[in-house]
């Protein structure tokens, strides 16, 4: 009876799928499909041309293969690149006009969209497959001049901002998956915080992959104008499916003089089953430019889901005195694999970066930290501190730390620390003797191990993330 109970909680809580009529682009990747996407979204000509330029470039690019987790070849022609609920042929005017099935879906995910049930102090943009279905608290944000909407809407309503910044951090000439995204991106969030404004609430996007055989290619663009501040959180889930699904998003952040962006991710895509069947390929490009002086960008990620996580949220520290931070927890269990880390590119004077990475590996999983600290010759007095800790549970999992350092500046200060430890039988025995069961014990030890990163999360999410950390390791000992 005990075992049965355990199996029940081990199940992926968000694994349900929503049965909803969809409109899809024809299967496959070609110019026609890109034109279809652009037309469906009523995009201006310049954007279609931009997409086609990216596609042209994509055709000569090769899929990278240097990463640790290998995966079977993806057949890009057998995927759908656009899928939207049919009720979105004309976007519903308000949340009350939404298809009740969608409202129900988000409610089940713990993200109620309706007015009376909204999460306190958090504005949410909900993305379902290829479209943004709703954005909450819009009026309250508009009062302060803050723009928070889907990127599709921004293309229509704020074309100058989009045109100026889209692709300015991740150009269409970037690597394979980023360029693929530029060609076929569907929806995502857009944020603009005007000069001197401190965003009064957390902004959050909730990504949901629902349709099968569909890739999800969101694009997020956040601009913090001079002296502004914003904290943004991204959450994601997907149904349990036997197939692997590709998720290749691009996220661009731009911080101007004295601006600060805090970007947090709690990634809980479906990880596949205990035998490694199914799950999301999470191949995401995230990059922030600290363009102005004294600007700051801070990435915090809690990566617990996906079959393969392959991403390096990065900071380009252009402005003098700018600061980049990367706090990461990557948990892999069963047959999950992660190859993640960051790039800190120091260009300006007195630029500082800090990297705290906590990798936790259990079962047959494999976890790699890979990071680059690149200090330009002009980055006088640049400083970096890197700390990479790995925690192993059991004997069949792996952990690797691969730090690259390129330093062209003799007066730079670079510190690197790395540790690997293991949860021992004796530690678990001690916890058990004090009344904690295996799962509680592991959760307690692991949460202690990643405390420094969890502390970076907005309060509202820290508790959820702590629970998630425990849940994703369930069944890892015993």
């Amino acid at each position, binding site marked *: 009876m005990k075992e049965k109970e355990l199996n029940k909680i081990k199940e992926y809580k968000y694994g349900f799928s929503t049965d909803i009529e969809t409109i899809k682009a024809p299967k496959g990747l070609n110019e026609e499909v890109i034109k279809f996407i652009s037309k469906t979204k009523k995009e201006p000509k310049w954007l279609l041309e931009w997409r086609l330029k990216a596609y042209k470039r994509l055709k000569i690019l090769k899929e990278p293969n240097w990463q640790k987790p290998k995966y079977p070849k993806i057949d890009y022609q057998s995927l759908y690149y656009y899928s939207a609920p049919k009720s979105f042929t004309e976007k519903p005017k308000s949340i009350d006009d939404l298809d009740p099935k969608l409202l129900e879906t988000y409610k089940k995910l713990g993200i109620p969209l309706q007015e009376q049930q909204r999460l306190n102090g958090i504005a949410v943009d909900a993305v379902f497959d290829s479209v943004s279905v709703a954005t909450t608290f819009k009026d309250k944000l508009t009062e302060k001049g803050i723009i928070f909407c889907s990127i599709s809407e921004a293309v229509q309503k704020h074309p100058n901002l989009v045109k100026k910044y889209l692709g300015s951090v991740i150009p269409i000439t970037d690597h394979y998956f980023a360029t693929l995204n530029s060609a076929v991106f569907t929806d995502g969030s857009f944020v603009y915080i005007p000069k001197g404004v401190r965003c009064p609430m957390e902004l959050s996007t909730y990504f949901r992959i629902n349709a099968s055989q569909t890739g999800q290619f969101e694009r997020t663009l956040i601009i913090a104008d001079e002296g502004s501040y914003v904290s943004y959180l991204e959450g994601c889930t997907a149904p349990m499916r036997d197939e692997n699904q590709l998720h290749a998003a691009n996220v661009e952040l731009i911080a101007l003089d004295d601006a600060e962006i805090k970007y947090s991710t709690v990634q809980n895509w479906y990880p596949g089953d205990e035998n490694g069947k199914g799950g999301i390929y999470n191949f995401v490009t995230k990059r922030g430019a600290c363009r102005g002086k004294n600007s700051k960008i801070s990435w915090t990620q809690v990566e617990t889901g996906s079959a393969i996580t392959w991403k390096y949220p990065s900071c380009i520290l252009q402005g003098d005195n700018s600061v980049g931070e990367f706090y990461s927890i990557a948990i892999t269990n069963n047959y999950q694999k992660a190859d993640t880390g960051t790039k800190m590119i120091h260009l300006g004077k007195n630029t500082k970066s800090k990297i705290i990475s906590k990798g936790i590996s259990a079962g047959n999983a494999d976890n790699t930290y890979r990071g680059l600290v690149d200090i330009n010759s002009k980055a006088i007095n640049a400083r970096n501190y890197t700390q990479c800790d790995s925690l192993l549970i059991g004997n069949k999992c792996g952990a690797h730390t691969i730090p690259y350092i390129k330093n062209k500046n003799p007066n730079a200060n670079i510190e690197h620390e790395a540790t690997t*430890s293991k949860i021992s039988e004796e530690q678990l*025995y001690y*916890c*058990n*003797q004090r*009344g*904690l069961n295996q799962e509680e014990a592991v959760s307690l030890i692991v949460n202690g*191990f990643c405390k420094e990163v969890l502390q970076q999360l907005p309060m509202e999410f820290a508790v959820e993330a702590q629970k998630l950390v425990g849940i994703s390791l369930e069944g890892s000992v015993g």
Partner: protein
Amino acid sequence: MLKINNLKAKIDNKLILNGLNLNIKSGEIHAIMGPNGSGKSTLANVLSGKKGYKISGSVLYEDKDLFKLDIEERAQKGLFLAFQYPLEIPGVNTSNFLKTSLNAIRKSNGKKQLDALEFLKVVKSKAAALKIDEKILNRQLNVGFSGGEKKKNEILQMSLHEPKMAILDETDSGLDIDALKIVADGVNTLRDKKRSFLIITHYQRLLDYIKPDFVHVLMKGKIAKTGCSELANELEKVGYENI
């Protein structure tokens, strides 16, 4: 409370406990002495449920088969072991550990969970009684604690859990004279008609402060001799070889 009958325990094919019998009634304090390697810690481990032993014989705890219970279930039902060598758990905050474990035990007994403030009040008063520096509560569990601090931390947990059956494995070893008195006071405050203790020690000194009802000598995995508290004095004089 605890009835041990012909208990044998093997590890790596080495027989360590070899037909041990012991009966501890409610409210009694039993002391176990014995040479190094005679199996005292093994007995404590087997009773608390540590894995890796091949066991035969029977143990009844409150008239029920102890071996049917998992480690944590034994703990939740009031069996507490103060370890000879308390484990270090890096990253885990001591106060948080104490709170989580206390709440796990309370939960299984249908008691209300203590919130952070309620817990703090309780732990502070218990720590003060044991003259434990509050600062260690905010450190990582047992990491860098002195030998004495580790032992006191075990007794602090015992006084929080208020167990029915407490086993103390050489809690007195490594304690200074003042700490020894404090720990003994900790035990004496808990002393109660419904609570039993099994105290493993090498020194008669502790037994001057905690008067046991029985003293047993464990040799080669068996109880070789049982007596009242005077037996400890005698052992101090003549040593184990002359038993």
